[in-house]
Every structure is written in structure tokens, then in C-alpha cells.
């Protein structure tokens, strides 16, 4: 068990180190999300209502996450490192978990800036809304990382990831927006937790088949 966790830590650390060096993905995601907010301001006609902005927050988050996910396996693709990881004696699901953990760190780092920016530009976010974002992050990273690995095997890499990801992201958006605007956020938060549990298990069990031939 400790070996398993150590493998995940090793792999996640490697991704963080690579990003700190290259510094390309995080700044791009940050700029993207902030630009999207500004676009939203101009896209929302006057009197659209406060709640419209909450919905747009989720659009921004999903597409920003997609931006990061598209490049998440790029280091492994470049040197053919996928083979190297598959050959290693570590559990294949550890490869997925390590990468998902790193993507999660990136996403949270972005949100630390984006959520206050949103509160500044549009309207404040309460605890339930932030909890919704936190829970949805887990689902986005778990499912997104696996789908990104699938897309890496495809000819049309960057094109196909959004197509694979968006239908699966719809329940997350429902949960997230619901927890922000509903007077009973508990139900939506529970639903998000359910989504996370169900899909995390599926991803954990099926990653082996995504990377082996």
C-alpha cells in the first residue's frame, strides 16, 4: 500500500516539477479564465439576473479545465514515456491517480485566483458554491485525466477531448450551479459526491485497459 501511495506521489511530483519548469500551462489557464470572465460580461445583456453569472462560472471552469487537460499527457507523449510507465512494476491505476492529482493541484491553483476574481466581477460566492467547485474538481480531474489519455491515443487529439468530456461534464455543471443557487444546496453537493465516487471507481478500474494494448 505504501508502495502504491509512493508511486502516486512520485508521479505527481514529477508533473508539478515539469510545470514549474515549463510554466506554460498554468499561466495560460489563468489568462484564459480571466479573459472568459470579461467576455461573459459583454455577453450578458443588462438585467440578465445575478444567477446567470453563476452558470457562466461553470462554463468558464469546465473549459479552463479542458485547456489544462488537453496538455496533461503531453510530457508522456513526447519521449514515448507511456511505454516506460507501463513497463514499470507500479499499478497502472497509480499512473492515472498521479496525473489526476497533479491536474487537481493545477486546477485548484487557478481557482484560488479565479473565484475571487469572479466574486469581484460579478457576485459573491457562498460556502456552498465553493464546496460545489471543490467537489466538482475531483470529478473533472478523475474523468478528464482518463479521457485525456484516451485522446492521446487518437489521431485527432485536441479535437476529440472536448467531445468526450463535455457530455460527462454536464452532471457536474448541474451539481455545481445547483449548489450555488439553490436554497437547499445539500442535495446538489450530495449528487456531486455521488458522481465523484461512481466515476472515480470506474476510472480506477479501467485505466489499465486504456494504456495497455
Amino acid at each position, binding site marked *: 500500500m505504501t508502495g502504491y501511495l509512493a508511486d502516486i506521489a512520485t508521479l505527481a511530483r514529477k508533473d508539478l516539477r515539469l510545470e514549474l519548469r515549463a510554466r506554460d500551462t498554468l499561466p495560460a489557464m489563468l489568462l484564459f479564465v480571466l479573459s472568459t470572465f470579461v467576455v461573459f460580461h459583454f455577453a450578458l445583456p443588462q438585467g440578465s439576473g445575478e444567477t446567470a453569472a453563476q452558470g457562466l462560472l461553470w462554463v468558464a471552469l469546465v473549459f479552463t479545465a479542458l485547456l489544462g487537460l488537453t496538455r496533461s499527457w503531453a510530457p508522456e507523449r513526447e*519521449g514515448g514515456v507511456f511505454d516506460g510507465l507501463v513497463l514499470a512494476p507500479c499499478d497502472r491505476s497509480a499512473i492515472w491517480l498521479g496525473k489526476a492529482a497533479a491536474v487537481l493541484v493545477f486546477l485548484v491553483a487557478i481557482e484560488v485566483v479565479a473565484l475571487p476574481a469572479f466574486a469581484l466581477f460579478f457576485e459573491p460566492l457562498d460556502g456552498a458554491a465553493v464546496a460545489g467547485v471543490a467537489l466538482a474538481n475531483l470529478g473533472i480531474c478523475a474523468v478528464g485525466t482518463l479521457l485525456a489519455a484516451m485522446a492521446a491515443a487518437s489521431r485527432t487529439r485536441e479535437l476529440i477531448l472536448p467531445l468526450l468530456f463535455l457530455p460527462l461534464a454536464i452532471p457536474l455543471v448541474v451539481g455545481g450551479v445547483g449548489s450555488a443557487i439553490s436554497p437547499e444546496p445539500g442535495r446538489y453537493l450530495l449528487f456531486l459526491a455521488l458522481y465523484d465516487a461512481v466515476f472515480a471507481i470506474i476510472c480506477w478500474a479501467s485505466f489499465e485497459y486504456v494504456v495497455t494494448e
Partner: protein
Amino acid sequence: MIQARGLQKRYGSKRVLRGVDLDLPRGGFLVVSGPNGSGKTTLLRLCAGLALPSGGTLAIEPERGRIGYIGHESLLYRDLAALENLDLYGRLYRVPERRERIGVLLGRFGLWDARNERVSAFSRGMVQRLALCRAFLHDPDLLVLDEPFTALDAEGAELLDRELASLTGERTFLVATHDPHRLAPLASERLALA
């Protein structure tokens, strides 16, 4: 160590391997030769455990962590330093006394001075040498090497020759090459793919 009967590999309707038989005993040195497109790379990938056969039987004795592999790609992170790459693999393979072992290998392949440089700054020959360090790092029982002399300069080739010679008999080798004559003195068996 490896035994294959009637090994087949298909990608869709394209047949790459059509019934290959292979026997590699422990301590053996099998040289696989053949023209381009004859399936050498596919055969080696199957024997390393990177792909599953479409037909026939394949028995590989060592488990996953005891196989070393050199392929056409380096299997190294370009933006990590040589030392960091080997450290990563060292951890994943649970190499005992990791730092010492990495130091020894880097020295043996003449890369100690470049240990903190990123792989993206390496020449092709240096990348191949580092890939060799990676393959030998965990002291595997079985080494599956796909054209390991590629891109090596005279010095690099000599280092590899020395390494292979020192391990022959103790470890098992499966090597694919364009140039079977080079390895003729070491080879205990041969397989030519059509």
C-alpha cells in the same frame, strides 16, 4: 525465460507476425534480425510485455519489474534532467541504494558530467546512452533491446559492447539488430524474421 509458439500479432486486418516460434533459455543471448517491416519491433514489444499477442502462446518468465527495455523512443522525459529521469524510474522500480546505482551507471556510460542537464539538450547519442542507463538501472533479469546501437558514436558503442560482454551469461538478452555480425560473438541463438 521466454517461450513462444505460433506467435501472431495483428493490428486490425494487418498481420505483422505470422506464427513465430522462439526459445530463449536463462542466460541466453538471442539475436533477432530481419529487414525493415519484418516485425522485429513488434516481437520485442510482445516479449517485453508492452503488447498482447493476437494468437499463439507466449510465456515470459520474469515479472514486469525484472525486464529492461530499449525501444525506438527513449522513454525519457525531455524536460527533466538525466538524474531526475533516472531517479523517477529508480523509485518506480524500487531500486535499492538508488543514488549509488544511478551514479555508477551514469559513470559507466560517460554521462556523469551531464547529469544535471535536461534531456532536451542532449545529442541523440547521449539520449541513447541515458536510455541504456534507464534499461540497466534496476539490474533486470531479462533485457529486451531493440537496435540498441542506434545513434551511438564509436565511444558509446564501445561502452555498450563492454556492458553487454560483462553481463552475458549472467543475464538473458533478446536483441534486435540490423547488423547481426556485430553481436555474433555474443549470440547463443539466432532468429531471422522474413
